[in-house]
């Protein structure tokens, strides 16, 4: 037993010295995940960063008071970065990808829209030219347009500004309509009468400075509600930090790459005859594998702690949840890395061929595990499938202990799953390991 412990210590110490003495490799292993996580974190909502506004071109061929109000309202909208311009220029900029969309108000839009307010005929058409690679923009622009057009047009209808031409025109159209029954005509004209009474009162209020005009007056149709968005965090004082998600993903990815190095290193050691020398010593095969597992678990855990130290120091990531749970995740993922490396060594034949296949397998694991984009945006079927991927559990566990701020109980399932996969990988590795040089 003493000889075994002595040998185990010597082998682990040797691996640690070999790994940490290669400063350049160590630096790359640490810097690569930090830099890439910083990049992804900044893309996916880092801390207090404001979302960028969507660049939109507006072409106003009407130049009416109504379209003027709509354009002004769009320019004031925090979602959009609106630039009025000529139609050809707008289309060219969309084509070049400089603008996400161009909104074109046709001539006579204001009058036609007001007339169409109460009738389902002759609606003017607003054309939206959009970049097909940015199709989500279309939905945003549609929503914003609907809000501002309804407000501006209804305001015009109800305010009576401009000697009330829209209402007079609408009354005339209804009177001439052959399609409407007398009852419908009577009801609509009654509505117009009511509107006219309101407009008259509004005009008097404006003159005297009292009534509705004094309180903001005829504002047109408004959204009948407001929203208050609140990020759900366990700690109300903390804020979501996109870096927490990206650091979980990138640390998992690059530490798994380190596991590949272990596997390929074992194959190289076998080729160099080192396994022959080690196995000629009075130690068991299982002790040799155990030493490789122990040293890799230690190295992987230390690397992850270093990466998270950088995340905490420079990117505001915080362990909002259980520290014990976080450390448990780090250690269990370290073990997973070690057994993954052993599995690679067991299934691989030559170092050269194995490295390529192992990189491919790792990229698939991290991609499906949600290291590149969070798994919650996967399709539902893929979310279910990814439960069979160990990296999914590791990333979920790390994010649960960081930005989600959950307690230790939330770490138990990810730790257990990660250990379960480690056991599986380790068992297959021991079963398939080719000891003969």
């Amino acid at each position: 037993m003493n000889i075994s412990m002595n040998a185990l210590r010597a082998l682990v110490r040797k691996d640690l010295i070999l790994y940490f003495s290669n400063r350049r490799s160590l630096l790359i292993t640490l810097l690569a995940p930090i830099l890439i996580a910083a990049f992804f974190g900044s893309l996916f909502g880092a801390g207090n960063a404001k979302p960028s506004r969507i660049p939109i071109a507006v072409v106003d061929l009407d130049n009416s008071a109504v379209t003027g109000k709509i354009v002004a309202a769009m320019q004031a909208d925090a979602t959009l970065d609106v630039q009025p311009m000529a139609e050809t220029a707008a289309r060219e900029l969309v084509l070049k990808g400089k603008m996400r969309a161009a909104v074109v108000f046709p001539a006579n839009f204001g009058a036609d829209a007001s007339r169409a307010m109460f009738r389902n005929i002759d609606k003017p058409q607003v054309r939206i030219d959009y970049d097909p690679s940015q199709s989500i923009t279309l939905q945003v622009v549609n929503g914003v347009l609907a809000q501002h057009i309804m407000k501006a047009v209804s305001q015009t209808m109800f305010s009576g500004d401009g000697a009330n031409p829209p209402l007079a025109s609408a009354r005339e159209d209804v009177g001439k309509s052959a399609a409407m029954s007398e009852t419908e005509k009577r009801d609509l004209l009654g509505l117009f009468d009511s509107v006219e009474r309101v407009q008259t009162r509004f005009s008097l209020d404006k003159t005297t400075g009292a009534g509705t005009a004094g309180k903001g007056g005829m504002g047109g149709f408004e959204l009948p509600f407001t929203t208050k968005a609140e990020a759900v965090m366990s700690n109300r004082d903390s804020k979501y930090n996109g870096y927490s998600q990206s650091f979980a993903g990138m640390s998992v990815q690059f530490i798994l790459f380190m596991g590949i190095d272990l596997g390929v290193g074992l194959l190289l050691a076998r080729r160099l005859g080192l396994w022959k020398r080690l196995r000629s010593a009075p130690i068991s095969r299982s002790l040799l594998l155990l030493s490789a597992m122990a040293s890799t678990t230690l190295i992987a855990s230390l690397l992850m702690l270093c990466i998270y130290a950088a995340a905490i120091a420079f990117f505001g990531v915080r362990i909002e949840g259980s520290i014990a749970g976080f450390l448990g995740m780090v250690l269990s993922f370290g073990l997973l890395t070690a057994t993954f490396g052993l599995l690679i060594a067991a299934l691989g034949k030559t170092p050269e061929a194995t490295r390529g296949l192992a990189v491919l397998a790792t990229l698939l694991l991290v991609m499906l595990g949600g290291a590149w984009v969070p798994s919650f945006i996967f399709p539902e079927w893929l979310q279910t499938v990814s439960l069979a991927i160990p990296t999914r559990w590791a990333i979920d566990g790390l994010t649960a202990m960081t930005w989600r701020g959950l307690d230790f109980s939330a770490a138990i399932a990810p730790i257990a799953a990660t250990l379960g996969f480690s056991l599986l990988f380790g068992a297959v590795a021991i079963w398939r390991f080719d000891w003969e040089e």
Partner: protein
Amino acid sequence: MLQANQLTKTYGDHTVVAGVSLHVTAGEIIGLLGPNGAGKTTTISMLCGLTPADSGTVVIDGKSMHDDINAAKRRIGLVPQDIALYETLSAIRNLETFGALYGLRGGELKQRAGDALEMVGLADRAGDKPATFSGGMKRRLNIACALVHNPDILLLDEPTVGIDPQSRNAIFDNLESLKARGKALIYTTHYMEEVERLCDRVVIMDHGRVIASDTLAGLYRQLPAAQSLTVELEGTVNVTALSREAGVKNVQQQNGRLIVGMDDLAATSAPVLAWLAARGHRVNHIASDRANLESLFLNLTGRQLRD
């Protein structure tokens, strides 16, 4: 000290080692000689417990290796054919790592590691990494790593491959020194010169079998002639007629070369050349040699040792 009896190893349909028996005693070097693929490395692997034999036994001082494999391993030092070192670990760290596998620790480990480096003449490079060493220095360190636990038996699998003559001589000096200290050494090689210089006894292997085993003098006695005359000539010689000439022990002809075995080169070579000239054979080149393991192997197998 070490006795191997009827060791056999088969991979699939291919029998790599077929009933090999050999022994080595304290203060003795035996050479395991054979061409590439003869089964030398597999035999060494079975002797040091790396590869289990399909049949046969390895006994060390009367105890079967299988009864206590770890006890047997502690008495054996293996020098693999490859340079099995951690290139980026210092020489002394390499030795300490391998020494610790045998239960050495603390001051004793440091002392043994230092002694092993001293033995192979690398004490002044203890802190340097093998990556900075020459091929010969790496080979010497490769041997030192097998010595760090002070084994009684040293198994060396072609330990001088690819090194310069100076380093080779340094290694030979080390091995002779170990022999003088009472170690038992088994030395595999396909270089007959190494065996002739180092070994007390020689075991010749071919196709997994022992085809000859004796002292050098005993092996040479198996040869039909002590010396040979090799003649490159044109035309086909009547080998039977030449064999009947006085002093000629045997004659072989292949690929335009005539090899004439004789016991007295000075007395026999001139009549042989005159005999050839009298029969119109134009001689292009003449060389003489004394009997060696190469010719013994050729005689036993009909093939060159390095084919």
